[in-house]
């Protein structure tokens, strides 16, 4: 999956992954996709809730060796 922007929040604790993601999302155009990397164990629930509330789209998320990847499309 090709993202327009990669946001690396690996190693950062709550609430930084969401804060960084929000800042990055503000720079995107509608329809663009960002990939957020996180190692925060709460981030799966966090990102699902955040994307739903802010009315963007979580295209998919996956986990690889303890790193969570979220693909968020700006709506």
């Amino acid at each position, binding site marked *: 999956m090709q993202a327009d922007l990669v946001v690396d929040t690996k190693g*950062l604790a*709550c*609430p930084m992954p*969401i*804060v960084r993601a*929000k800042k990055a999302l503000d720079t995107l155009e509608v329809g663009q996709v960002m990939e957020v990397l996180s190692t925060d164990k709460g981030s799966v629930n966090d990102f699902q809730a*955040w994307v739903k*509330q*802010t009315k963007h789209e979580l295209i998919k998320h996956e986990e690889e060796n303890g790193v969570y990847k979220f693909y968020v499309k700006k709506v």
Partner: protein
Amino acid sequence: MKEKSTIVLFSGDLDKAIAAFIIANGAAAYDHEVTIFFTFWGLNALRKDEAIQTKKGLLEKAFGWMMPRGPKKLGLSKMNFGGLGPQMIKHVMKKHNALSLPQLIELAQEQGVKLVACTMTMDLLGLQQEELIDEIEYAGVAAYLGDASNGKVNLFI
């Protein structure tokens, strides 16, 4: 129209202030308009680190000396151990890459979180505007309720 969240920070405890600022920063990332209303002991989180010369009476001065001056001086609500507890928690937070309270306050201001000091309790505790950090607002209960009545998340900490 943006959604609103408000927090009343009544407590002057380090752990509670950290919780308040984490929630505030999270809400800002949710694109909410966020207000933190500081009253009573919570006002100490807004104090500048350095001593500021002000004209005030002996009782107000005594309050100023007895209360923690700024976010770096706050104690823990549990396991304070005469100031050893906060040092331990700061060490652990650093280890886990969590932001410190001064960093959380800075981030909140950067994200446009509105920080409001309660003027009535400032008078009671003898705190003056010059002693508090810059770029905050000053108001009373009506202003808080104005924000809170449109808020979906309103917390008292």
